[in-house]
Each structure stands twice: as C-alpha cells, then as structure tokens.
C-alpha cells in the first residue's frame, strides 16, 4: 500500500494492515470464485440437458415429418405400380419373354438396347411412346389423380427420372431418353425385384451422372394381378435436396440452429448450410449420431467444420429407414439438429461476464471497506506499540488513551497499570543497586587484603600470558612493580631458564584449554591430568609428594599449581598460579625420611635381636649345662633342645626373609581362592580358641587365581590370625569375594577394636606389632604383603578405630578358564592340604 516508506516500523504496521485486508479479500473472493465456477458449471450442464432434450424432440419430430413425406412419395409412386393396365402389359411381356428361348430373348434385347443407346427413333418410340409411357406421363402430370390428390409442383419437378423395367431389368417405359436400358445389375433393381418376391427399395443419396445432381431413388416392384410375383419394377429418381429441403429448411432457430438429414454413412442429404452429397466433416461423429434410437449427445465437433464441443440431437427416420437399402440394418436415415455452441452458451456466458463485472466491483468494495476496517484495528495497535517502546525507555509520562471499548482498550489499561508498577519498582531498584555496589566494592577490597595476607605468591594471568594480578608476597618474592602489573608478561616476573619456561607454557596452555590444571609431576608432563581445583580448599587425605610441581627460582624452591577461574559476565577466563615456598619443606622431608628409615631399622634390629635372643640364651644355657653334665642321655636331651632352638632361630630368619617353610617348586598353578581361604580359617580354628567367633561368608563363586597354593594359604592365615587375635576370639568375621573384569577382591573384615590411625602407615613394616612379647613376630602382614605382591596382587588395610578392620586383598584372576584349566584348578586345590602356619 505504501512500500516507498523506508522505515521498518512503517513496514511492520503496513504488514499487519495488509494481512488484515488480504484476509478479508480471501474470505470474500474465494467463496465468490468457487460459487461462480460451480454456478457456471451447473448452469452449463443444465443448459446442455435442456437443449439436448429439445434438440432430440425436434429431431424426432422432423424425422416423423420426413417419414410422412417419403411415405407420401411411395404411395404416389405405388399408384402407378398398381395400375391394372400397366400390370396387364407387364404380365403379357413376362409371358412373352418366358415363351421365347434364351437366344431369341437375348437377340431381341440386344437389338433394343443398342437402338436405345443409339437413340434410334424406333427404339425410343417403343419405350417413350408406348401405352405404359403414356400412363406414366398421365400419373406424373396429375391427370390420373383424384381431385384432392394433385402432386405438388415441387415433387413433380424434383422427379428426375421415372421408368419401368421388365422382369429382366430392361427398360420398357420411360418419359425421357435419359434412363439407361439395362438395369438388372443395379442395386436398386435387385433390391426391388427381390428374387421375384418384390419389396420397396429406397436408395441412399448418390450423384447421378444422367440427372447431373444428387438424387435418391424409390424403386417399387410391380406385382402381377394376383400379387404373387414381380412382373416389373417402377423406378423413380428424385433430386434429394429438392424433395427434402422444403420440409426441413424452414426449421431454423436462433442464428445457427437448424435441422439436416443424413444417411447412415454420414452423407448430407439436405442441410440449410452444407451442400447435399458431402460427408460430415468429422467421421468420428457419425457413430455418435446414427444409432437407431433418438437421443442427444455432447460431441467434440459440430460436423460442419467446427471443432468446438457441440450439442447434437438426432433421430432415425423410422418407417423410411425400413425401406432404405431394403433393410433397417443395412442403412437408415437420420435427422441431425445442431446449434453453434457459441450461440447456445451465449446466455450463460453473458451471465458469467456480468457476474464477473459485479464480482470485481464487490472485490473493490471489499478492499476499500477492508482498508478502513483494518485501519481502525491497526491504529490503536500502533499506539500501543509506541507506548511499549516508551515504557521500555522509561519515558512514558502520559497514560495511553484508547477508547475502542474492546480488548484493545483493556490491553491499553493493562499497559498503563504495568507502567505504574514498573515505575514504582524502578524507584526502589536504584537504591538497591547503590547498596549492592558498595558491598561488591568492599568485597573486592577485602579479597585483595586476604590475598595480600596469604603467605604464598599468587599470580593471575590472562590468555596472552599477561599478568593481571599479583599479591603482595608475590610482588615481594619476584620483585614485581605493582603499578605496571597489567602489562607485564608472566615470564618477565618469573626468572626461570628456557626449559622450565617451555614446560610452564605447556602447562599453562593445558590449563587454559580444558580448564584443567596440570598437577602431574614435572618429569611426567604427558601423564594423566587431574581436575583443577581451588588451591585454598583443604586437601583431603595425604597429598602425594611426587605429584606436586616444583620450580627453582633463584635460590628458592617452590611448589606451584595452576588453577582456572571462569570469567563472569562474559569476561575472559583467567588462569591462576599459586606458589608455595618449599625450600624448607624439602629439607624437613629429607630429614623425616631419614629418621623413618633409621626408626624402622632400629625396630627391625630390636625385633630380630629379641626374637633370636630367647633361643640363643636357651642354647647358651644348654651349652653350659652340657659342659657340666656327665650323663650322656641328658647331654643328648640337651643337644636335641639345642637343635630345636636352632631350628626356631632358622624359622625366625626364614620368616624374616619371606622364604616359605617348605621348599616347594616355584611353579604357579591355578588355585581356588575361596577354598584356600576356607582351609586357612579351618586350620586356624582348630589351633586357637574360636568358640565365640561367628564367620559370615559371601563368596562370588569359585574364583581361580594363579599362585602357589601353600604360600597363598599362608598369606591368608597370617591375615586371618591377625583378625582373630584382634577380636580376641569372639565377634563376627566376614569373608567375602567379589569379581571385577580382571581381578578378584577378597575382603576380610573383623569386628575388633580397629587400628589407631598412627599405626596404619606402619602396619606392613617388618617387626611392627602391637601384640605382647612372644605373641607375634611382627612379620605376618609383611610376609602376607610380599606373597600377594609376588602373585601380582595388592593388599591394603582399612580401619576405623572402634569399628573393626578390613583387609582387602586384590588378585588377578585367570582371564579365561577353559575346562582343562578348571580341571587342573580343582585338582591342585584338592591336592593342597591344609597346613597350619605360624604367623
């Protein structure tokens, strides 16, 4: 409507208005068009039906008229055929011919024929001047007719030839010299003679050379007096158009509507438009219009040269058609009623044109009314839109005034209320913002103070390795100038060599990329990466000293850690680096390790000494006793005791070195873990008091591991012994196994008092024991761990003081256990006997 306006707001407004107008137009125009189309279609159909029926009726009526005309003509002609004088003449001629021999007959006829063809006076006189010719003339001129039966002039002039033949088809009487002499082989003669029986024969239209026009012919047999057989044939040739045209030419309706007569071949016999003798222009039309019943058809052409769809009424000429070509089936005549489609459908076309004109006016009206209606709807919407923009900017001072009395007015009221509420809300909001800003500023200040108070250097770096923040300790440690920190690159602050710098950069990028800080050791930078975390949060558990990065800056050694800080409010992410001066820590650590080692050695030495001392003193005592003993039996007894003490010492040393009691082969074999566990507990419960012990088993099944059965059992015996001793023989002992993909986990849980935390780290140390003197060597768990480690497994102790201890043994399982393996597993298990083992 106004596309020249460039403003997008204007386009939007017009868009709504345009949509409204288009909707109204569509709502109006589509039903209008559909209605018009249907009306035209239905109207055309009804016009077709009504006119078709009228055409059919007219065709039938005209057919009857033609019938009457033709039967009149036949009747008139038959009057000649039943004339007694003519019959008598022909009877005599027949008898004469029958009386002659074949030769005589042929000779006489040949003579007459040649005479006739040569227009010989005698021959011509015989035919045209005879009694019969005179009679024919009288009939034709009307002299023989009764007063009320005069032949109309038109019929008289239409008759081109009228003549009589005998039973041989030869001419016997004629009015003119025009007719041919011999007719025996013509269709009409054969038809009318009909093997001597005789029948009416009407010939279809054809061009007659002698008469020089399109003609039809009526042939009547002349029967003998007793009407038994044919004695001659009366043949009458009539100009088709002259005969029929007066009957059908006056039937005209409209400008083009008319009736015509065609024969079964579609040849026009009479038509006000087409000349007689021409075929219908469209051969496909002929079967449509020449059935034996009257009807009408909507044909693809009009038969007059036009190719438009035409309405054609048709009807056969009932009585005459019986005689045409001797039979109804061999040929019939049909009337054909037609009017040009243009003329036929002109009224409905005019109606459609007028309706189209009025439709355009209606569409125009709809458009203009639609424009006004849309304008009235859109205007308040535009005002609402403008008001909404003002509210958005907080500039709406006047309430919106829309008085349409509908939903738009309600909407405007809602806008006004919303605006009031927004104003009230904004007033409070400004104060809140000021307070919050102050809070944020103080928070920032306190954060800075806290960071400055932290005794380790902290540096914040942006993506370009530019230092954005450095705390006071950092500034002091790295001699950075606080005023220009924003522009200092990180490595200007950190005075490290090139290799360390490259390593740090790599870590920095890693931290930057995935938000992950590398906490791996400096030597394994390609190893696993752990998640970055806040360095200020307390570390759970003991930190592994090996996982901590270290860097040497100047004379000081620092531990450092990267952390990732997500930027807020679309700010850039930052990477933080926190240092800890570990120079003193390292020294302390070294000293601690040294002390630990010394401590362990001391314990070891003391343990060995203590364990060996007892038998050693026994040996010494016995040795002294032997010195002073004369009784050989007693000496032997002492010697046996010495040997026993020696064996005890050897056992202690063997336990310490971890060598199994029996020197079994070192061939590992598949062993049932659960069975070994069960055998170990069975052995133990027979040797020590376990009356108050409840054993709960939860096994995953028969699990095969590759091990030496005796050693494995000893390991379990050691662990179980510890557990039972811890419970003092009463309580609940839980044994369970569970499977993972590659390993089996055996858990032995007691309900004893648990292990104090300070003992946990030493529990596997050799000779570490909490038991009393002589109760344990302190080697049980050491041996057990060594055995389990040897078989590729692991052992660990979990304990909470006061709530029992769990010993968790993990061993790799045999990955696939085929039947043979299973068999050997079972076999070995049955072979290995329970063997008590000291712990």
């Amino acid at each position, binding site marked *: 409507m106004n596309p020249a306006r460039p403003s997008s707001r204007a386009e939007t407004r017009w868009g709504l208005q345009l949509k409204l107008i288009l909707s109204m137009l569509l709502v109006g125009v589509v039903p209008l068009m559909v209605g018009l189309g249907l009306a035209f279609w239905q109207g055309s159909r009804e016009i077709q039906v009504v006119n078709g029926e009228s055409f059919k009726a007219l065709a039938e009526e005209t057919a009857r008229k033609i019938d009457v005309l033709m039967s009149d003509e036949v009747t008139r002609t038959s009057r000649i055929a039943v004339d007694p004088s003519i019959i008598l003449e022909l009877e005599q001629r027949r008898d004469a011919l029958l009386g002659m021999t074949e030769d005589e007959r042929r000779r006489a006829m040949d003579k007459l024929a040649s005479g006739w063809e040569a227009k010989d006076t005698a021959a011509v006189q015989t035919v045209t001047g005879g009694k019969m010719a005179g009679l024919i003339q009288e009939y034709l001129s009307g002299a023989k007719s009764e007063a009320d039966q005069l032949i109309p002039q038109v019929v008289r002039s239409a008759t081109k030839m009228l003549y009589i033949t005998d039973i041989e088809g030869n001419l016997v009487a004629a009015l003119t010299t025009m007719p041919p002499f011999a007719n025996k082989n013509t269709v009409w003669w054969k038809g009318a003679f009909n093997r001597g029986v005789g029948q009416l024969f009407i010939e279809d239209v054809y061009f007659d050379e002698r008469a020089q026009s399109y003609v039809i012919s009526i042939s009547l047999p002349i029967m003998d007096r*007793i009407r038994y057989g044919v004695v001659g044939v009366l043949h009458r040739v009539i100009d088709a158009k002259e005969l029929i045209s007066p009957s059908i030419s006056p039937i005209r309706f409209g400008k083009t509507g008319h009736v015509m007569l065609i024969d079964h071949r579609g040849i026009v016999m009479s038509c006000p438009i087409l000349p007689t003798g021409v075929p219908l222009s469209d051969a496909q039309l002929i079967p449509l219009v020449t059935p034996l019943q009257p009807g009408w058809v909507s044909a693809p052409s009009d038969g007059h040269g036009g190719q438009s769809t035409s309405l054609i009424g048709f009807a056969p000429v009932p009585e005459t058609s019986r005689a045409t070509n001797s039979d109804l089936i061999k040929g019939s005549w049909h009337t054909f009623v037609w009017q040009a489609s243009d003329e036929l459908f002109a009224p409905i076309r005019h109606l459609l044109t007028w309706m189209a004109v009025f439709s355009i006016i209606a569409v125009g009206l709809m458009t203009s009314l639609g424009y006004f209606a849309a304008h009235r709807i859109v205007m308040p919407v535009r005002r609402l839109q403008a008001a909404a923009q003002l509210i958005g900017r907080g500039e709406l001072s006047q309430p919106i005034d829309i008085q349409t009395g509908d939903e738009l007015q309600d909407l405007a009221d809602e806008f006004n209320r919303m605006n009031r509420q927004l104003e009230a809300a904004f007033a409070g909001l400004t104060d809140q913002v000021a307070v919050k800003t102050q809070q944020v500023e103080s928070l920032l200040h306190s954060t800075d103070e806290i960071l400055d108070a932290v005794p380790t250097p902290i540096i914040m770096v942006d993506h370009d390795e530019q230092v954005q923040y450095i705390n006071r300790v950092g500034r002091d440690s790295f001699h950075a100038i606080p005023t220009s920190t924003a522009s200092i690159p990180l490595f200007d602050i950190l005075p490290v060599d090139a290799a360390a710098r490259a390593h740090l950069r790599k870590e920095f990028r890693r931290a930057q990329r995935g938000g992950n800080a590398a906490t791996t050791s400096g030597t394994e930078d390609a190893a696993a990466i752990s998640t970055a975390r806040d360095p200020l949060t307390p570390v759970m558990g003991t930190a592994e000293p090996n996982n901590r990065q270290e860097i040497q800056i100047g004379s000081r050694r620092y531990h450092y850690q990267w952390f990732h800080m997500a930027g807020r409010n679309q700010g850039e992410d930052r990477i933080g680096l926190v240092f800890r001066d570990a120079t003193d820590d390292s020294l302390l650590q070294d000293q601690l390790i040294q002390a630990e080692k010394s401590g362990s050695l001391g314990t070891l030495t003391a343990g060995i000494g203590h364990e060996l001392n007892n038998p050693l003193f026994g040996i010494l005592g016995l040795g002294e006793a032997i010195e002073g003993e004369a009784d050989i039996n007693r000496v032997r007894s002492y010697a046996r005791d010495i040997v026993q003490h020696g064996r005890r010492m050897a056992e202690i040393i063997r336990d310490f070195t971890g060598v199994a009691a029996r020197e079994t082969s070192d061939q590992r074999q598949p062993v049932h873990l659960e069975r070994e566990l069960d055998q170990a507990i069975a052995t133990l419960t027979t040797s020590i008091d376990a009356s108050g012990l409840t054993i709960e088993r939860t096994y995953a099944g028969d699990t095969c591991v590759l091990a030496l059965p005796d050693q494995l059992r000893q390991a379990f015996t050691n662990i179980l012994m510890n557990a039972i001793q811890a419970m003092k023989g009463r309580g609940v002992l839980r044994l369970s196994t569970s499977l993972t993909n590659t390993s089996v986990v055996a858990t032995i849980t007691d309900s004893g008092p648990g292990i104090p935390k300070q003992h946990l780290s030493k529990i596997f140390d050799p000779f570490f024991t909490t038991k009393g003197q002589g109760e344990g060597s302190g080697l049980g768990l050491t041996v057990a761990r060594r055995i389990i480690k040897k078989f590729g497994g692991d052992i660990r102790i979990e304990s909470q003081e006061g709530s029992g201890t769990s010993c968790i043994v993990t061993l790799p399982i045999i990955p696939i256990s085929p039947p043979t393996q299973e068999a050997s597993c079972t076999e070995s298990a049955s072979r290995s006997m329970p063997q008590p083992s000291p712990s």
Partner: protein
Amino acid sequence: MHRVSVSLYAAALTILIYGLLWWGPSVLSAKERSGSPGIPPEKAAAYVYAVIKADRTLYTTEIVNRLQAKGVITASEHWEQENALMLPAQFLQHSGKLAAENGSGVRYRLIGLWPIYRRNSPASDLERNALESLRKNPDLPVTGIITSGRQQYFQAIYPDLAVSQACIDCHNGHLLSPKRDFKLNDVMGGIAITIPLE
C-alpha cells in the same frame, strides 16, 4: 450302288440304336410318373397352414404373451428401434417373405378387409370374396384356382382370428387402422396360401 445300300443300311441301324436308346428310358420314366402318388393342392395348403398356425401360436403364446406378462420385454411394431419383440402379425408377414425369398414357390401372407397398411388388402376377387365369406363362416377355408397370364395357382384362404389381446390392441389403437372395434376371437382377416400349379 452297293456302297449306297451299305450306307443306307448303316444309317438305318444307327437310327434304330439311337431310337432304342431314347425310347427305353422314356418308357421307364413314363412308368415311374404314372406310378408316383400325388397330393391334391388343398391338402398341401392345409399342411402349410398347420405349420404356419403352429409357429404363430407358439410365438404368440410362449414368447410374446409370456415375456410381456413377466415384464421381460414387450412387443412393438417398431421393434428394431425399440429393441422389442415383433408383433405376431409381423412375425407371420416376415416369415412369409422369407419363405417366398427362398424360391420354393409357396407364398403366404396376411390379408384383411381393414388392413393398417394397404399393401395387405385383398389382391384379387377370390381373396376379397373369400374374406367376405369367412366373416360369415370361419370354419372352412376358401380355395380356388387363380391365373396370372399363363401361370395357374392354387390359393387357399384360411380365417385369421384375433387370438391374443396384442392383436386387438394394435388394430384398435393404430392411427392407420380403418376399423377399431375388434374383439377377441373376431375374424380379423385371413391367411392366403398360394401354391403354383404345374
């Protein structure tokens, strides 16, 4: 001379042989002819009439009347156009035409004093007189000899009664019918059977 007498003798012998050859069969055939039994034309006409009557009765009762009563099809004068059955009278006329066209020589047709079509009016005095007498006495056929030129024919005219309602309806209702008060079993006309005489 001798040669002449020989020739004469041979000629006489030849004539004798030929004469014997000719005469022999003719004597035999004369014997056959005189011995073959003939039937009088009245009887021949009666045979023909019996066949015609049987055919027409069958057609009228079993085809036209029955099918019309069942509503399957009707009989109509314009049976070709209307896809109907031909009327019994048309049946007789058409069969007569076919019989004539066969060339056997026998002719039969329906004639009447009040025909719908004039071609079915009596053609001769015999026919006219016969129709008149049959009106009064329909029990016996009227016969006679008629001539056309030198040819003689035997003609028998049998009465034709209004055997079905269809006959009456048509003749009483037809536009061209000159008489419209026929009743069932009235003598409406006659069947003329013509047989050529040797």
